[in-house]
């Protein structure tokens, strides 16, 4: 408590420091640096540096205000393309391969080759795979814990739709989610997303096995 006034004094000195760059100066410097530093390589063109609204709002140390986050979520929700034929689930075996696959979209990847889902980089899924990341929550028992016994049953419809939405555009439910917008950004095809849906929701998938 006694150190408190001292801290305030220090903060005042730092804020008042004449040579501290202003936010506007830093903005200009960052723009100059981006232009001078990056070049296109392979499929990674310079337009990748142009931010959309969601990216821009989530590019600070602190998250955007609730109002801005809500606006972004609404806009992102509107981008979700639902399966035209009403079929949400594919083959969980293909889904597992996609979940393991971390390739695609880098400057060293060839054009036109579908990439992977990168899922294990951030999430636990099947129990047998011990090499999983923890940036996202564990998805082990994903369908089971959410009571999805039969993905085709009407009782499962809401959870199935929610999961599709999460894979297609995770920013629709969490403006600054760390998760890529797999469908929206064209990282995965609708067929690939179906296979990942099956990995998460099919009772036969190792994700839901005991």
């Amino acid at each position, binding site marked *: 408590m006694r150190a408190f006034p001292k801290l305030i004094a220090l903060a005042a000195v730092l804020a008042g420091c004449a040579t501290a760059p202003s936010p506007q100066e830093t903005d200009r410097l*960052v723009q*100059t640096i981006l232009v001078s530093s990056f070049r296109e390589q392979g499929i990674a063109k310079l337009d990748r540096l142009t931010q959309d609204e969601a990216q821009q709002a989530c590019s600070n140390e602190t998250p955007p205000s609730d109002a801005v986050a809500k606006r972004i979520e609404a806009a992102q929700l509107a981008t979700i393309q639902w399966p035209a034929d009403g079929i949400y689930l594919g083959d969980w075996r293909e889904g597992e391969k996609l979940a393991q696959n971390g390739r695609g*979209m880098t400057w060293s990847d060839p054009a036109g080759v579908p990439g992977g889902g990168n899922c294990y980089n*951030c999430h636990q899924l099947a129990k047998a795979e011990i090499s999983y990341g923890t940036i996202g929550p564990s998805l082990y028992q994903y369908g089971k814990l959410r009571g999805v016994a039969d993905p085709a049953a009407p009782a499962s419809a809401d959870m199935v739709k929610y999961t599709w939405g999460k894979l297609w555009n995770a920013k629709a439910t969490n403006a600054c989610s*760390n998760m890529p917008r797999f469908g929206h950004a064209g990282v995965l095809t609708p067929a690939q997303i179906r296979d990942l849906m099956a990995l998460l929701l099919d009772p036969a998938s190792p994700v839901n096995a005991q």
Partner: protein
Amino acid sequence: MKQRHAAVWAAGVLAVTGCLASAQAQTSTADGIAQYRALLADGNPAELWEAKGELLWTQKRGSKNLSFETCDLGKGAGVVKGAFVELPRYFADTQRVQDLESRLLTCMAAQGFNAAEIAATPFGRGEQVNLEALVAYVSAASRGMKFNLPQGRTEERQMAEAGKRLFYFRAGPYDFSCASCHGEPGKRIRLQDLPDLAKSPGDGVGFAAWPAYRVSSGELWSMQRRLNDCYRQQRFPFPGYASDATIALGSFMGVQARGALSIAPAIKR
């Protein structure tokens, strides 16, 4: 024998409560990885690069037939010890904030090499091989010293501030910034721990562990190469070697790491 007991025990627990057993499995995985890293710690092939860099430092090279003994890394001509833990910093002769690699390029230009050509050379080829050796040698000379980047000049503060912006800059098809993976403590990709670079990650972690020998490629990676591959995995366009974006990020991370002990060159997966 001890391990077999542990396995039987873990299986028993699994039958009782899945939750606890899962935590147990995670611990044994972490223990296994820790054991693997401990076994590798003795005998880091980065030493091979350090030795090569030491020879290169005193060797007269280039069209000007100069050694690096006239090269000022910020502590005076030819001074190697302690230079690494104060980089990036501002250099009056180039009027730029420079990291170790960009400064070595400046010194190579003085030797008569074409710096732009070397910067454009792919990693692991031609003079880039020598640069990695020099980076190993110079960083090793500051092993056990604390990071203490100078921030006295406006240019240095501006560069660190720009680096902070770039650290949080989300873009590309995956919406990733550096902070997507390195903005929180205690996270990992697959089994690799991710240092929280938004704060000081501590002694010998994060910024204080690079350059490093990469087991996966069997090569020594400078911070430039580390950042280049981070941006590749972020699905960004290509950052130029020793470009201002990479130097700005180095400045930001280096300032965050103030007081942390350097273990570079480390050994990494």
